[in-house]
């Protein structure tokens, strides 16, 4: 292929070709990139022009540019809001809870899958754990409500049959976060293993052979061969997850929210939804959303910085 010929590894003593020549020489590769770049430009960068309404009093008929500026009024209102600290606490605690439980589980499951030799059994278990991933979030919330209904829910009946007193999962604020995180685990753990399984397939079998000769047990090999091999993948996944940390899946929270669990289920995203889409306060909700994004970016940069300092892996 032409591309491979032109992009042959450079030799140190060769004069570095100009950037322009480099791009022209590899134009096919850039062409492949183009759709993705366009996608981000059109759907992620162009809409940023609308962020300015966070600093304005947006009136639809005047348009984004024509609406009057109000400075930081909307931000002030949010910071002074009765719910400000509740929202921050819930958003962070749900996110970190989810990360603490939901992040290691796929890794453990993937390591376990990797040890299963029986092909048929392995495939069955994998398919079973993948399946909940394909259930839409609305259906999922409906299932959770039905299963946990105190009068007819199958899970409640099961707990009661064991002679235990089933908690009010749906309405007790103390249980909301756990219910949210555990149902998330049920839905996405299996799917999350895929990327780690792919990384595990790259483990050099010679390492295992050598370890077996040295008398290492299965568990020891998993710990000292498999885990270090997928560590870069884990780091990158962790950084990516941190970037999303305040973007908790608000659809599911919204669907499971009720007045009784509100004190532990109200997050920034659901607050934005109520202010923006229900009450039509577009400028205010944009300001809150922007605040959320800024915090997110700060978190992402911090974690990436820590990762770069402590290991060789980082996004940039």
């Amino acid at each position: 292929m032409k591309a491979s010929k032109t992009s042959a590894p450079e030799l140190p003593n060769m004069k570095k070709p100009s950037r322009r020549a480099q791009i022209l020489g590899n134009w096919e590769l850039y062409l492949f990139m183009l759709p993705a770049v366009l996608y981000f430009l059109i759907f992620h960068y162009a809409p940023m022009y609308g962020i300015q309404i966070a600093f304005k009093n947006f009136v639809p008929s005047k348009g984004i540019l024509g609406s009057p500026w109000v400075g930081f009024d909307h931000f002030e209102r949010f910071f002074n809001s009765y719910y400000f600290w509740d929202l921050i606490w819930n958003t962070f605690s749900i996110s970190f809870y989810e990360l603490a439980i939901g992040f290691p589980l796929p890794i453990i499951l993937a390591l376990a899958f990797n040890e299963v030799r029986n092909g048929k059994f392995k495939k069955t278990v994998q398919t079973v754990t993948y399946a909940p991933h394909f259930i839409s979030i609305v259906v999922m919330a409906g299932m959770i409500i039905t299963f946990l209904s105190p009068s007819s829910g199958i899970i409640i009946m099961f707990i009661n049959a064991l002679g235990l007193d089933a908690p009010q999962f749906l309405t007790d604020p103390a249980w909301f976060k756990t219910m949210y995180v555990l149902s998330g685990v049920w839905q996405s753990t299996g799917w999350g293993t895929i990327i780690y399984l792919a990384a595990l397939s790259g483990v050099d079998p010679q390492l295992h052979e050598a370890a077996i000769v040295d008398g290492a047990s299965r568990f020891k090999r998993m710990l000292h061969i498999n885990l270090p091999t997928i560590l870069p993948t884990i780091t990158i996944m962790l950084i990516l997850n941190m970037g999303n940390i305040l973007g908790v899946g608000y659809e599911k929270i919204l669907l499971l929210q009720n007045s009784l669990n509100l004190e532990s289920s109200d997050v920034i995203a659901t607050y934005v939804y109520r202010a923006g889409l229900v009450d039509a306060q577009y400028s205010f909700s944009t300001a809150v959303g922007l605040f959320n994004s800024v915090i997110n970016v700060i978190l992402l940069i911090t974690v990436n910085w820590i990762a770069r300092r402590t290991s060789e892996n980082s996004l940039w």
Partner: protein
Amino acid sequence: MNIRSKAWKLLMVGGLGASLLAGCGSSEEAASKDESVTVSKDGFPIVEKPIKLTMMAPDTGVQNWEDMVVLQETAKLTNISFEYKNAPKESFETKKNLVFASEDYPDVFYAAGLTPSEQLKYGEQGVLIPLEDLIEEYAPNFKALLEEYPDVRKSITAPDGHIYSLPVIEFNQHWYRNPLWYNGSYLEALGVDKLPETTEDLYDLLKRFKDEDPNGNGKADEIPVSSVTTPAANIRDIRTWMLGAFGMYEEELFVDDNDVVHYTPVEEGYKQYLAYMNRLWAEDLLDHESFSQTAEQKQAKGEGNQLGLFSAWHAYQLLGTEASDKDPMFLPVHAEGVEKAAIAKNGGVKTGAFAITKTNKYPEASMRWADYLYSYEGSVLFNKGPEGTLWEYTNEADHTKKAIPAPDGKDSEEIRSTLTPNYGIPAPTILTDEVNKGLTTDFDKWVENETQTKLLDNGARVPFPSLFLTIEEQSEINSLNSDLSTYVKQMEAKFITGAESIDSGWDGYVATLKKMGSDRIAEINQGAYDRWKSN
């Protein structure tokens, strides 16, 4: 290769530019009117050559609007057809907000339930066009109606003197919310022949529902009262009636007999209501799923004959039985020390049902189309379906009709919902006795009598008139309300379920509400009410 790559680049850049332009350039000016179409001022068709407009409306999801016979017949009659932009009834509010923000307006809104503040806001911005001149010229039926009922004109005219929407007029529909109904079989099993009149009587009866196995299945599975919480409000379907027992109207705002506006959640009566509900909750008389269950789950309990007192349009619909006069309507109870229960009544006129936007090229034709809905023929067609399907004339001259039984033993209401859009949504129309003439069944008459004796004769009235706030007032209320209403809703649930003690928590709760601006909300509305009153 170079030339080809340049061509690609140009193509891509061009594509990007075009899509960016498309994104920005969508703000349209008011549509230039299409003068080529002549609109006849009377008779049909309304226009000579067929035109097509877009209509935004809430949808109950029973039938595609394109396939509704009533709309098809009207299109044939008037030569005006519509492209329907429906959104499900449950999420219509959200969709409506998005449409107003996106500037992608439909030509007309149908059954949109535009609030007074929306009418004023979008009217002043020029999105909704003023209708009064069009009514004068192109709406003979509606104009006659305004002359007959001057109050209707008063309630639909915005403070700037314009009319931005046409109303729903139902002078004989008095329900503010669905009534509560007792399960008749429970009352019979317990030998109850006198309905409770006070909150204590009611408590005793609910207790008996719970303990004496009125459904006779040997299990204590009876749920004395059940309710459903929606995003708009907690247990609204029963709180309207429970709050009434303590002299409070259910909405956040009401005006008392001395023209003083009250913010309900800080009132003493509201506190007593919370205490009463907390008692029902603690003794398991109020369904513990009331804050989390869906309407379907409640329906299932109703059909399983587990419910004693519940809200429904008609009791038989929730119990899954035939229409009967065995399930009595709830007689509003009153608490000790409260002279009479506050009973809310529907004012009969609801604005915001039909509006025309600035992008509409044929406002005159649209107005004449809407005017048809307020004629006798139009009202019969839209509310009863076409003649020969569910009804026929016994005497066409004096408009007497008789019902045709629905085929295959189906419920005729179910069939009606597939014929006409006017089902469960606030559609622009006028519903008069003439429209119903001959079609009222014995059951309808019984319901009417229950309404008259239990609600109207006991002093039901409109809790708060639907009045217009100025844009500044409205935006101040919106910003106060976004936290306030969440807090009220959250605390109501906590007080009722006992998560927060009423005795120790009430004072702090009221203080927080005041800090959040509850007094200001009452104050703004008092001002608006006084303006309305003096008009």
